[in-house]
């Protein structure tokens, strides 16, 4: 919460500052979003529909070889108080020369080449509550130095402040829901424990491995180079992990209430990453891979690889069709059944804590993107994710967007989820199929 107070102070002083500059330009967007959840929720308090408004103005000032961008973000949600949030996406001053560039402020950096997930992209925290996919990011305070050379470009980032994940509230979907204990702990619950284990995330006080908590100074760097049709990037990150681990507190009460609380814990990590792509005719081959180590995590390697193939002007029409196939793998084990007597709560806690909740440890994604190339910039994306670790574990998604008039973008999205195995990390969201319609006006 400390960060949010600082944000408000920075935001108001920046509005005053940029407003007083003459060569400024104001633009931005206002969006209205409605979501309908098709199935009855796992827990009755969870909502069936959700309406939300977002506002994202952008003030830009440009001088000789320097610029300043200020982009606050507000979302108001009809159901989830946690999703109603304010953020400064960007408040960044840049100055650039032929061979280098310096940026200071709150910014956003994208690293990576693949389409379904970007393992190497760890500078900004995901705004997980804003969108279910990973495309929305929280602003990150940074000092960025970039240099451009014949042998490639180098970025150095000093990241003095950390942004924890915002989790959905009790009434929201896509949050942990209760699981039948006898399935999680076959044969060992012995009638001792509760019927259900109800997992709650307590985000009131995230903890950190770093002594100075969220004020730990993280460092990141990336080298990128292009040689003809081949692009390569090597990256390094050292600091507080953007992905939380969880401290679990099952206690004697758990045996009667079934209530288990997970407290986010952000470990210190060291991560090396590679991202590369190769263009060959209509093919783009892609790979991202990371190796992550730390004292408080299980060291692991992960990769995502695949291709994009484009058919241009299908059947002599204006329509382009892109095929995307990607496979994601992670060296950590999948979630294991509990293997301890319910009287041994310390062991239960330990076993839950040591699980990998990643949804991308053995996953194939196949999608087609239809670009209509019409005046309305219409697009359609249809695809599926198949989790190969579990039987019948898949999602299907459809995304459509088009423009109405000069400045209004309409998009519709539907996601359908199948998950039968309680040990599948997606199982808790199995009833969260939804249809969403969004209208965004740009000014």
């Amino acid at each position, binding site marked *: 919460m400390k960060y949010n107070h600082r944000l408000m102070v920075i935001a108001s002083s920046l509005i005053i500052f940029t407003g007083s500059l003459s060569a400024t330009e104001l*633009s931005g*967007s206002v969006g209205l979003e409605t979501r309908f959840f098709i199935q009855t929720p796992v827990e009755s308090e969870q909502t069936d529909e959700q309406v939300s408004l977002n506002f994202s103005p952008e003030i*830009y000032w*440009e001088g000789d070889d320097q*610029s300043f961008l200020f982009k606050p973000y507000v979302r108001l949600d009809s159901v989830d108080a946690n999703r109603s949030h304010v953020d400064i996406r960007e408040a960044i001053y*840049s100055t*650039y020369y*032929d*061979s280098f*560039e310096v940026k200071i402020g709150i910014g*956003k*950096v*994208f690293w990576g080449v693949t389409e379904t997930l970007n393992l190497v992209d760890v500078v900004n925290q995901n705004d997980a509550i804003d969108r279910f996919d990973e*495309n929305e990011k929280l602003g990150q305070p940074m000092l960025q130095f*970039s240099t*451009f050379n014949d042998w490639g*470009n180098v970025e150095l980032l000093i990241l003095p402040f950390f942004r924890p994940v915002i989790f959905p509230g009790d009434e929201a979907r896509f949050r942990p829901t209760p699981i039948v204990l006898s399935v999680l702990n076959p044969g060992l619950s012995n009638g001792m424990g509760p019927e259900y284990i109800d997992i709650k995330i307590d985000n009131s006080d995230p903890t950190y491995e770093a002594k100075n908590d969220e004020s730990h100074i993280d460092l990141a760097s990336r080298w990128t180079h*292009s040689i003809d049709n081949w*692009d390569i990037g090597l990256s390094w990150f050292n600091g507080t992990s953007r992905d939380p681990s969880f401290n679990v507190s099952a206690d004697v009460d758990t045996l009667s209430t079934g209530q288990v609380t997970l407290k986010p814990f952000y470990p210190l990590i060291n991560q090396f990453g590679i991202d590369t*792509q190769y*263009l060959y*005719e*209509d*093919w*783009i081959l892609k790979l991202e891979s990371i190796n992550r180590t730390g004292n408080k995590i299980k060291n692991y390697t992960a990769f995502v690889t695949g291709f994009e193939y*484009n058919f*241009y*002007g299908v059947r*002599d029409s*204006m329509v*382009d069709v892109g095929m995307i196939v990607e496979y994601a793998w992670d060296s950590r084990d999948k979630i294991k059944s509990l293997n301890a007597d319910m009287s041994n709560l310390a062991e239960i806690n330990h076993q839950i804590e040591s699980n990998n909740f990643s949804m991308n440890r053995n996953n194939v994604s196949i999608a087609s993107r239809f670009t209509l*190339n*019409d*005046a*309305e*910039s219409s697009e359609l994306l249809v695809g599926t994710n198949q989790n190969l670790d579990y039987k019948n574990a898949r999602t299907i998604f459809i995304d459509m967007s088009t*423009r109405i008039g*000069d*400045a*209004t*973008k309409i998009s519709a999205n539907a996601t359908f989820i199948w998950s039968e195995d309680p040990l599948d990390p997606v199982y808790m969201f199995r009833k969260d199929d939804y249809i969403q319609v969004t209208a*965004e006006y*740009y*000014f």
Partner: protein
Amino acid sequence: MLNKNYSVGVFAISVFITSGLITVQAQTSEEKGFEIAKERKVRDTGWNDSIQQTTMILRNGKGKESIREIRIKSLEVADDGDKGLTIFDKPADLKGTAFLSFSHINKADDQWLYLPSLKRVKRISSRNKAGPFMGSEFSYEDLSSFELEKFKFNYLKDDVLNGSQMYVIESFPTDKNSGYTKLISWVDQDQYLVHKVDFYDRKASRLKTLTANNYKLYLNKFWRAESMTMINHQTGKSTTMNYHDVKFNQGLTESDFNKNSLKRSR
């Protein structure tokens, strides 16, 4: 119009060049076509760099219009295709999107697209030459720089268009990814400017016609059309590009045309 700008001197020179071309007895129509194209290229060499504010008007078959505002920065590259950076100002949902392309003579062009909401530079396959640019009737190849190596030429005839003497030449794209089998261009005999082009699709039927209007002279040497209109005969759609505020010698360099400048162009 151009014919009002005739000066006696220029006229005399063009008559001299024209007659020079004609008097070479052994010249085939292919050679003559090439000579005309080469003269066109030579006369438009040395402009270094330019910035053009451009309004694109897209019209569908029913005459409904939609407007795009773009800025085009261009850098002339000796012995290869030019470099171009196109920044989108309108429609507002695409504001800040930018397209970087390096045209090449002997290999596929390099292209990148910058998506400002994701801060992501995406490399894109350039084999979509025939694909429409921003939903317009102009394809990517229509907007890439004119290079002699991209075509085989053939002189067809002389003609009169809008009261001016024209050469009519055929151009056959050498790249198999081109959307065209043939272009027929009307090039004026005075300044070697293209006034009209008919484009023939892969089935060899006439697909589109480009007309260039109101050529204006810059730096006393370089002619640029104020507007270009592309009509698609098969769909009835058309696109007009209105170029305003054309500036040359803006001091652009290679460093204004790379992935980093793409990220900060807006």
